[in-house]
């Protein structure tokens, strides 16, 4: 009798322990892992797809306009008779590299600015906060439209403008986290030892807030993808004939009116899937970094 009770108890303990381990290993949660899988699939399509698809995404064939799926064109063609599959696959590269560069620039610059401001504090910190607030007041898209007005339409101008527009978002979050970290006694202990401020900021403060930075950079990636797609949609971002999801939604608009929604539909579906996946991953990472802190 007691042996049975013991067994039950041991089993319960093993189950509880396994569940705990699973939770720990999968701290992204079920939705997080699904989102990660979806995002990985999209990245894989953009990375490897162009190597497998041999059709030229820019080959125009007006006689083949608005075709349905066939052996030659698995997803059909657009208004100019270009292969949709090829355009979606090649367009993925443009659509993903753009926001990646935006996030990379704004995260590096924003983090550097925030860490410097926090370390020196005082009037320098106050000045940085004011500048950040001032940039924050400009909508990212407005800034990008302004940049294209100055430097001409195209991806480089849009990326540069959005990098600046996203900088305050990252800088603000990093500043508040770094400020909390800087006021901990271990930083004071290092200062008293005579350790250089740059060393403390890069080797102690930065690693301790890295999780938070990655989480927010991931979230920013989703927004940047949408903003860049939006710019390409209104014709200020990626220029024809280069394939891009945002631009494809724009050119596909005409097709919708003529009863051929395939181009706009496929491109927007990929944008939605990517942004949704990235947002879920970012949220999970954010929660995790908060639990850790």
């Amino acid at each position: 009798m007691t042996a049975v009770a013991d067994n039950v108890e041991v089993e319960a303990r093993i189950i509880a322990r396994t569940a705990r381990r699973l939770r720990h290993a999968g701290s992204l949660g079920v939705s997080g892992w699904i989102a990660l899988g979806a995002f990985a699939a999209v990245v894989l399509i953009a990375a490897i797809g162009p190597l497998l698809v041999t059709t030229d995404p820019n080959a125009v064939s007006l006689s083949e306009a608005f075709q349905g799926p066939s052996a030659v064109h698995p997803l059909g063609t657009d208004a100019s008779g270009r292969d949709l599959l090829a355009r979606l696959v090649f367009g993925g590269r443009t659509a993903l590299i753009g926001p990646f560069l935006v996030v990379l620039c704004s995260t590096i610059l924003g983090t550097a600015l925030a860490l410097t401001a926090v370390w020196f504090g005082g009037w320098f910190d106050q000045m940085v906060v004011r500048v950040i607030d001032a940039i924050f007041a400009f909508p990212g898209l407005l800034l990008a439209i302004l940049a294209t007005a100055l430097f001409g339409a195209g991806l480089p101008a849009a990326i540069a403008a959005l990098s600046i527009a996203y900088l305050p978002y990252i800088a603000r979050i990093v500043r508040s986290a770094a400020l909390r970290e800087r006021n901990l006694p271990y930083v004071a202990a290092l200062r008293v030892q005579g350790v250089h401020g740059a060393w403390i900021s890069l080797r102690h403060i930065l690693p301790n807030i890295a999780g938070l930075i990655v989480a927010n950079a991931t979230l920013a990636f989703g927004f940047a993808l949408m903003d860049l797609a939006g710019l390409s949609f209104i014709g200020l971002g990626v220029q024809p004939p280069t394939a891009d999801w945002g631009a494809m939604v724009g050119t596909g608009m005409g097709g919708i009116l003529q009863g051929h929604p395939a181009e706009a539909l496929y491109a927007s579906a990929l944008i939605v899937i990517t942004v949704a996946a990235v947002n879920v991953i970012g949220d999970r990472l954010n929660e995790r970094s908060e639990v850790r802190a």
Partner: protein
Amino acid sequence: MSAPLLAVENLTKRFGSGRTETTAVADVSFELASGGSLGIVGESGSGKTTTARMIIGLEKPSGGRILFRGEDRTQPARTAKALRERGRNVQIVFQDPYTSLDRRQRIGDCLAEVLGVHFKLSRDETKRRVRGLGELVGLDERQLNSLPKALSGGQRQRVAIARALAAEPEILILDEAVSALDVSIQAQILNLLSDIRDERGVSYLFISHDLAVIRQVCDDTIVMRHGAVVEQGATAAVLDDPHHAYTRLLRDSVPRDGWDPASLARS
């Protein structure tokens, strides 16, 4: 007689300005002899910690002077080299053992980092010195290889002491360094500190609100209240025969047989 190891002259610290200005430390003067141990007692907000932070260079004094071996260290260090040199003069152990260590850094790496700041050592020599510091404060190889979260509060405070001693300072400031620990752990750390003092000849500036702790560790004691020194002298004299009413109040606030907090509040 030679100059004292540390001399604090008319040290003053004011925070804020205009109507919100408050004086945290007012005209505080004391000396710490080489090899001596000086206690600073007082209630919360009496300016003990601010005094320590000024000596260590984390706050800038509003007035007065701080002299180490007769050398002025009132103003912030100008160069990185001077900053490190000051680190080798005076070190500090903070109150909270949980936030005073980088949670991502292994204990041994933490000690090695500080050694690297002050001394040019080979890799093997660093390893040897880290192990030596661990031995000094009673941490074994396994603990040196672990992250702070694997250690107890008392063990972490040993790490903080080892880190401070890595710079081979002449003065060690202990700012409520045992206040956050259980009484039994407190006793261990206090014994450790007295062993280290015998072994290394380091002088202590011991800040505490706990009279029993001060009595056990300090030769001399000063009593602070509202940022000012109200009484100072040999520890036994100050605590056994207090002249100032505040010292008497502090002493009578320690619970004991037949203790009556109500009568204290009336007095």
